[in-house]
């Protein structure tokens, strides 16, 4: 079977004065959707606030803000409170962008340009703080440390900070996408293979179903859970094989099972990458400020 993993879809093409020919991709459109979702969430959570006798909604919102402030304070100290909105925005945008793929929508974070945009903003801030803390002369002199021969390496290491940040996030999301596609393909193939085997004759299908039902009741009388589960699986497989014998072909195994891997690659990976990106943002800015 054929499998292809592509980048974002091109939706339109424009001629712009300076940039020349540019493409409007799925990434941009979905990032707008993400913005609308986050903005709506913000307006909803930020409305009807009370000082005492708060609602459950407000409690959640306050907890989120408190943990965000704590996160920034833990990583940067209390002198960088003006970066709280930036860190919070990057985190929530990253999480929503990562998780939107669960709805079958293209994830903007699966496009390197998204993360590179964020990383460039962080890079500008890092450079600003470096120049602010040691002066422009001190900043430029820092590239000659420890000896002038190291200058090219120092410049590269400086430039690779945003690139590595962007690529780490992008690579993890992309790997999740790739592995999900691979698992989906593999399960589809396995599904058809199994159905062909069981559905080769009516007897095989019926036999599997019957064996499953017998095992289920045997497990029930013996009160053994494992037997019951195996019985149910065999019975369902037998019935599905009968269905495929009638002529309805469907990759049954792709229902449900990918959710288990998606739990790790989309939910866990998505959240942890957003967290790592924000942690690096705060730590780099703090380091740059000295």
């Amino acid at each position, binding site marked *: 079977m054929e499998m292809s993993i592509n980048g974002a879809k091109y939706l339109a093409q424009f001629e712009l004065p300076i*940039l020349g020919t540019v493409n409007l991709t799925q990434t941009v459109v979905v990032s707008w959707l993400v913005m609308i979702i986050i903005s709506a969430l913000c307006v909803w959570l930020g409305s009807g606030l009370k000082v005492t006798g708060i609602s459950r909604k407000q409690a959640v919102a306050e907890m989120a803000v408190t943990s965000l402030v704590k996160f920034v304070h833990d990583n940067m100290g209390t002198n960088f409170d003006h970066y709280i909105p930036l860190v919070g*925005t990057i985190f929530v945008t990253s999480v929503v962008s990562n998780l939107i793929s669960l709805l079958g929508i293209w994830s903007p974070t699966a496009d390197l340009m998204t993360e590179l945009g964020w990383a460039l903003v962080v890079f500008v801030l890092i450079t600003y703080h470096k120049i602010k803390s040691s002066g422009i002369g001190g900043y430029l002199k820092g590239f000659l440390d420890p000896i002038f021969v190291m200058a090219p390496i120092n410049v590269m290491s400086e430039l690779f900070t945003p690139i590595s940040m962007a690529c780490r996030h992008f690579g993890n999301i992309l790997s999740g996408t790739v592995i999900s596609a691979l698992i989906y393909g593999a399960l589809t193939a396995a599904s058809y293979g199994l159905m062909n085997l069981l559905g080769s004759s009516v007897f095989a299908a019926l036999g599997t179903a019957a064996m499953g039902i017998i095992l289920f009741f045997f497990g029930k009388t013996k009160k053994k859970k494992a037997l019951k589960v195996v019985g149910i699986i065999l019975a369902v497989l037998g019935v599905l094989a009968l269905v495929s014998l009638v002529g309805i072909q469907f990759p049954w195994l792709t229902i449900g099972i990918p959710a288990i891997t998606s739990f790790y690659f989309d939910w866990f990976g998505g959240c942890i990458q957003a967290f790592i990106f924000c942690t690096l943002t705060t730590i780099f800015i703090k380091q740059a400020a000295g």
Partner: protein
Amino acid sequence: METLYQSLVAVEPLTLIATICNLFVQMFIVKKFFLDKILAVLDQRRQAADKQISEAETARQEALDIKKTYEQNMLQANQQANEILANAQKTAVERSEKIIKDAQQQASQIKSKASADIAMEKKKAINEAKNEISGLAMAIASKVVERELDEKDQSGLIDRFIDELGEQA
């Protein structure tokens, strides 16, 4: 129209610029509609809590002051009571001493008066006895001497005689 995909890693200037712009717009929205509001509420609550704590502290201080005043008052009352008691005891002692003294004085007065009376009585008795004796002596003498004497001279003579007699006695 054929669906075109960009490659997995592609440089798209529009996407990059849009992402950066989106980030700033999003940051503004998050700050304006969410963070600032929640932080303001948290700040208000903290201030309210601070106020309550300071109020409680003031109330505690007041209660302590009241307690202190009360204790002082109690102490003063105790002292006053003690003073009153001591005064009363002193007065009682003084009064009893005075009574005893008065009684003693009166007793001594009575005693001296009694002894004066006794002395007077004694003197009176002696005088009477003297008179009796002078009468007696005169009677004896008139009989013994058988000499008519002037009454006046006689009594003076006899008185002198008795006095001498009394002094000898």
